[in-house]
């Protein structure tokens, strides 16, 4: 019997049962099975329950809309959601479980006032290759920390952006450094990833408004599996956009 029609193999990749003839052939034919497996890689990557069509609804807390309104500047208010309050009343509690050292993030509003201007430079440069540096910022140590560094926003030819970070800081043993972009009023933040002393490049999410998250922050995170900011920051700078 000839190989199964290509359309049938695609349906098999979707885990649909085939007509008997095709199913029998497929069971015995390595060529067709290889084809099904190669088509199935995409299916298995996304056909998971978490990504399925929406099921039961859940009402998000009011802070979710507050964050959307703050990030977009939209002042219209959905029915049933409390109106946004002044930003000072909106600051989400930071889960600062660890107070071993450093400055608590909640103090950031004060701290950034001091940091901004100190060592923050901005340069816009024409493209060497197809990568353009947008702005560069010094990461200044907070209080008596020994960490410092610099961060540069680069834009590549394809429009993707990255943050190139140089960090001078002592190595950690049972903790790690993490890089964040944070709103000026420290309501919302975007984790960019684990940071090691030395040079590293972090992809910036497409669509992320850097102007909304101008604070480049380095935190110390315990190995506790908690994805939120530890509340312990050791260095910070402000992007000048």
């Amino acid at each position, binding site marked *: 019997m000839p190989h199964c029609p290509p*359309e049938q*193999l*695609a*349906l098999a*990749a*979707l885990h*649909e049962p085939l007509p008997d003839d095709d199913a029998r052939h497929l069971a015995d034919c390595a060529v067709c099975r290889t084809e099904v497996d*190669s*088509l199935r*890689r*995409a*299916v*298995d*990557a*996304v*056909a998971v*329950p*978490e*990504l*399925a*069509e*929406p*099921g*039961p*609804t*859940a*009402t*998000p*807390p009011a*802070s*979710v*809309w507050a*964050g*959307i309104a703050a*990030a*977009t500047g*939209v*002042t*219209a*208010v*959905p*029915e*049933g*959601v409390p109106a946004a309050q002044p930003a000072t009343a909106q600051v989400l509690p930071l*889960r600062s479980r660890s107070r071993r050292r450093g400055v608590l993030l909640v103090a950031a509003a004060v701290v950034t006032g001091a940091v901004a201007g100190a060592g923050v430079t901005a340069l816009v440069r024409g493209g060497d290759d197809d990568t353009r540096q947008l702005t560069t910022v010094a990461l200044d140590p907070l209080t008596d920390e020994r960490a410092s560094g610099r961060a540069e926003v680069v834009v590549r030819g394809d429009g993707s952006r990255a943050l190139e970070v140089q960090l001078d800081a002592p190595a950690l*043993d*049972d903790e*790690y450094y*993490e890089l964040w972009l944070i709103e000026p009023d420290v309501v*919302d933040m975007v*984790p960019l*990833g*684990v940071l*090691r002393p030395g040079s590293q490049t972090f992809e910036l*999410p497409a*669509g992320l*408004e850097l102007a909304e998250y101008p604070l480049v922050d380095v935190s110390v995170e315990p*190995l506790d599996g908690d*994805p*939120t900011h530890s509340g312990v920051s050791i260095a910070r700078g402000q992007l000048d956009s």
Partner: protein
Amino acid sequence: MSELLVAPPSPPSSVRVVFEDSVAAGSGAREPADTAFGDLAPDDAEVGRRFAAGDEQALAWAYQRWAGQVHGMAVRAFGPGPDAEDVTQQTFIAAWTGRARFRPGESPLPAWLVGICRHKIADTWARRDRQRREAEAALSQAQATPTGTPGPSVDSVVADRMLVLDELDRLGQPQRGIIELAFFADLTHSQIAERTGLPLGTVKSHIRRTLERLRSRLEGDGAALPA
């Protein structure tokens, strides 16, 4: 404006990936009369059009109507708490800042929001995976002799998932709607044909071509396929 806000909410609309509107869109015959404009509660299609046009009230309406579904997905993936809330928040922020890419004639706004939510869920998985690997690597580097080992790579399924979701965004209709019904609604090709009104053979050949296209993307030679 205050009248708009006190109007009774429209019945909760369901998110459907069906694209019957877009199938008929070429004829323009199904466009409802524009009577809802300025009325108490614009219909979903009108909210979609105003959203695309940048009307801020449309973002509030979209949140009012579909945040529950989006957040339901986020909670299903991560349980209630900061991760789910972040996914929901980032979904609406990304939808608003990326509204230029939303085509109201091609897909309903709630389906588009759900698509963005899938990306945000996959992003969160990828971030967790990266953090876990990098933390483990940092830990083992600190404990063992550093030998210039390559940095941790993202789990291959995590990476596949992001590539596939990205490629789905590049598909036109009806291909995207068809494959989403197969992937996310778990419909068979004959159920998809029934749901969409497209001929069985058309559905099958679109499925085949889309899976080939996704395979090319995953195998690395299809990054710039035209939509």
